[in-house]
């Protein structure tokens, strides 16, 4: 009783929430007695607000968005894992440089204008981490924001020297002859921490343990399908994001992992703190509700 059987799940148009998309497509939620509606949210950083306003009960923020929201005082908890970095996803990430610029080693980025799809967002934070690991002072790199869909045009016009990007854009830009991959920094970092996980407001999560249990069960099943039969995942992603299936197929979905461990978040907290993105001290034990 009191458990809510009809919930909305808000995600951005990426493969990270594939486990939930599959769970809808394959009727896994229904099997658990849950009616789930997927809501497409344009910008990831809006997800915490959407959760708090009750527009969605569960959302899929990136780790950076989630941690910054928690740091800003939003009472959110992570309830299940969605996607984690892995060999495929890491290989998808690249710093793509325009024609006329050659990057031989990390310090060649010094003084360059680099476009990131979101300052302080996933790709940017990782890139800065990579620079630091390679002994390059990130302050000497000039970052600006360039969203994914405009990257190709800006690279072509020479507006920036490089962009931080991911598949399918890497292949598209390479095929269009606008430049080359300058660094596969994702692969070089080779991490396995979560990219996106499912989060809810603490209030709701504590009141609906039963719903959450069912949700986790369905997600776990969905994750297995995503990881084993990408074909099904692609179909679900294309359907949810209304993207042409060919485009979706260009890249394998990020690995889904329904579990969530505190130490994985600890790694994120560390690098974000070192990049001065967090102001307070976050209590790890309170951030995850298992």
């Amino acid at each position, binding site marked *: 009783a009191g458990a809510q059987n009809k919930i909305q799940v808000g995600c951005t*148009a990426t493969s990270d929430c594939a486990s939930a998309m599959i769970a809808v497509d394959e009727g896994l939620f229904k099997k658990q007695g849950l009616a789930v509606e997927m809501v497409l949210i344009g910008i990831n950083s*809006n997800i915490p607000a*959407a959760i*708090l*306003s009750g*527009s969605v009960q569960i959302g899929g923020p990136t780790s950076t968005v989630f941690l910054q929201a928690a740091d800003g005082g939003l009472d959110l908890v992570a309830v299940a894992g969605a996607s984690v970095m892995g060999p495929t996803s890491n290989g998808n990430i690249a710093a793509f440089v325009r024609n006329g610029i050659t990057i031989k080693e990390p310090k060649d980025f010094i003084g360059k204008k680099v476009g990131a799809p979101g300052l302080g967002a996933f790709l940017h934070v990782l890139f800065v981490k990579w620079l630091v690991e390679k002994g390059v002072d990130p302050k000497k790199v000039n970052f600006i924001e360039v969203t*994914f869909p405009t990257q190709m045009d800006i690279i*072509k016009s020479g507006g920036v020297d490089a962009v931080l990007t991911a598949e399918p854009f890497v292949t598209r830009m390479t095929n269009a002859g606008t430049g080359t991959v300058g660094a596969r920094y994702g692969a070089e970092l080779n991490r396995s921490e979560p990219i996106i996980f499912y989060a809810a407001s603490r209030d709701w999560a504590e009141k609906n343990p039963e719903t959450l249990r069912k949700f986790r069960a369905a997600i776990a099943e969905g994750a297995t399908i995503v990881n084993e039969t990408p074909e099904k995942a692609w179909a679900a992603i294309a359907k949810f994001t209304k993207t*042409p299936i060919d485009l979706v197929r260009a890249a394998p979905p990020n690995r889904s992992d329904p579990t969530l461990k505190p130490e994985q978040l600890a790694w994120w907290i560390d690098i974000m703190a070192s990049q001065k993105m967090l102001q307070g001290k976050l209590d790890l034990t309170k951030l995850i509700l298992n």
Partner: protein
Amino acid sequence: MPHWLKPLVLPVALIVLFEAWARATDLQSDSLAPPSAIGRALIEALGSGELWIATRDTLASTLAGLLIGSAIGLMLGIALGLSSGFNRLMDVTIEAIRPIPSIALLPIALIAFGFGYRMEIVIVAFACIWPMLILSRAAIGGIEPRLLEVARLLRLTSADRVRKIVIPAALPRIFVAFRLAAGIALIVAVTCEIAINPIGLGASIMAAQQALRADLMLAYLIWIGAIGFALNAGLLLAQNSLFGRAALAEIAR
């Protein structure tokens, strides 16, 4: 050249030029597409039901926000235009709140109202208040002073003064303000959808953009232009039938 053809000359010329350029340079872009592709995408979109649902959502919040916002703006504008004391007292407050971009309020509005119509209507209304307020205040400032003196001499009640002198005298200009506000309402509604709200044409544009369908995105953009055009044309029609012969008599001289 027949009358109805004239407006088409310029856009058709531009479209032909753009198409030629796109073909000559073998356009490869995620934000631009040749007009022929846009045309195909538009036809495809018109055939699917989604465009119509999105249009309904956008128009509903545009109109609701427009009506609420301009009613508030008009009332404030009249009050401020008539009472110079009130006007002066509110000056700092108004001028300081006015430039706050509604887009900066989006995160707060999202928390307060969640996704959907309500948030969008509030944002649109907030944006519509200001042009209406400023322009109706100016319209009232521009009323022939002799007419206001007539009102004073007849000792019209405040309500009558507004109803019988102020509004009719300022109405043509207030209507211009309303048309302006209508344009702004549509823009803000779509912007709101692009930035946050997952309904309406703005969300469709976002989806098309993220799906790298530049042709579809531009088709939606053109569709929005068409809606705005129709909105404005409808208002113009209303304006002409509203001010009928009194306006025509002015022109006759």
